[in-house]
């Protein structure tokens, strides 16, 4: 029998090793797999490269992972948001590396990593500082830069519902990077609000087919990260 369900976030992230590349879903707080991230803080793997659109808010979730000095390098499109304090300070002190990638290029590089496409061309960042040093090429009279796929050792993703095959559906704009990140890691670890029976998700509406998922853990009432940030909560608590 196929059963990708594991019984705790701690067990789900237990294989993450020092130096791993870890993709973390979410756009701001929407879709951020906060219980998996907190389990990764408890777990303690260090020297991680994290691929995520932002760098976390307040002192919980991704920001707490960074604050706990487990992340040596961030690959993201928007490292400073209203409530991000941890990353900016470390970055200013030169204590964390940053690779800044335009958001669409980030999404497409991850998709390419999952789709067996090693590289592609995009018009984004041409003739800008972020296009400097990239190989460029003209197609049809227009200039494009070549971008390389990104793959990860692990992806951490949050979804609405999952089954034991790992089929997933998401909630509203919390979907964001989840589906592409699921495809691009050697091991994809998912927290779901609900685990349903096989067939409980209409096969026409599955967003992430189970083939892209390795482990699923049920987190019925995930923390509302925005509220934790507003309350100035700090993880570990």
């Amino acid at each position: 029998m196929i059963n990708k369900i594991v019984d705790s976030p701690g067990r789900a992230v237990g294989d993450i090793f020092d130096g791993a590349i870890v993709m973390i879903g979410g756009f701001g707080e929407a879709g951020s797999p906060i219980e998996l991230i907190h389990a990764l803080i408890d777990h303690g793997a260090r020297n991680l490269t994290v691929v995520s659109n932002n760098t976390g808010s307040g002192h919980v979730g991704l920001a707490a992972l960074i604050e706990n000095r487990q992340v040596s390098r961030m690959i993201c499109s928007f490292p400073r948001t209203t409530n991000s304090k941890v990353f900016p300070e470390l970055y200013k002190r030169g204590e964390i590396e940053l690779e800044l990638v335009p958001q669409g290029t980030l999404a497409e590089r991850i998709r390419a990593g999952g789709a067996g496409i090693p590289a592609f061309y995009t018009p984004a960042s041409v003739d800008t500082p972020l296009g400097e040093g990239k190989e460029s090429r003209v197609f049809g009279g227009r200039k494009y830069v070549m971008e390389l796929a990104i793959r990860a050792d692990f992806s951490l993703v949050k979804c609405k519902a999952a089954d034991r095959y790992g089929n997933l559906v998401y909630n509203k704009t919390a979907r964001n990077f989840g589906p592409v990140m699921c495809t691009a890691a050697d091991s994809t670890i998912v927290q779901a609000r609900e685990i349903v029976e096989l067939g409980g998700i209409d096969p026409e509406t599955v967003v992430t087919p189970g083939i892209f998922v390795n482990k699923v853990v049920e987190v019925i009432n995930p923390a509302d990260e925005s509220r934790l940030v507003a309350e100035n909560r700090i993880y570990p608590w």
Partner: protein
Amino acid sequence: MVGKESKTGWDVVEMAANVAADIHNGAYVNLGIGMPELVAGQVPEGREVIYHTENGLLGMGPPPPEGNGDPELINAGKKCVTAIPGACYFHHADSFTMIRGRHIDICVLGALQVSENGDLANWSTGEPGAIPAVGGAMDLVAGVRTIYVISRHLTKKGEPKIVRNCTFPLTGKQVVDRIYTDMAIIDVKKEGLLVRKLAPGINADYLRQNTGADLIFNFNCGNK
């Protein structure tokens, strides 16, 4: 500044209405964070416009009543929004397929600087020590068919934002189609910056004094 001191110029709502007047029925529109967000509220009655937010929603509706927001239904500025009937959700790669693949008709962005040939700088002041953050801006200017800039004509320090050449790092080269400021509406044309309309109380000389690039005035061909 202008509006305040002299009671001339357009206020931000009027600026947003100027942009909205140029959005056609049926347009797919992406609104940048900040001042561009005001445009949605100014679209004339009878026009159906569909808003795209790059974090995965087509058919974005107005903000929900205070306190009724869903933290998993947000816009690119991470603020709570709603979804209209006929909306749909999708992942980031599909979202940027819409952007990069020229499916979005209009994108309205803020600016730090716009050059006379339509270069846009809106993501970084390039100051050492500042933390760079680009988001989707470079994809938007590279992919969306029409780029409108909405911005105060001058910086807070009173310096022109419309310049011969941008000194800040570029978001994209030759990408801006039209600029809506508190003083004027200006088209970026091959022959240069063409002033389409002046705000109340602003004349050509005043506009020239507050602009860092040459301006063309020819209301016969440009104004409507």
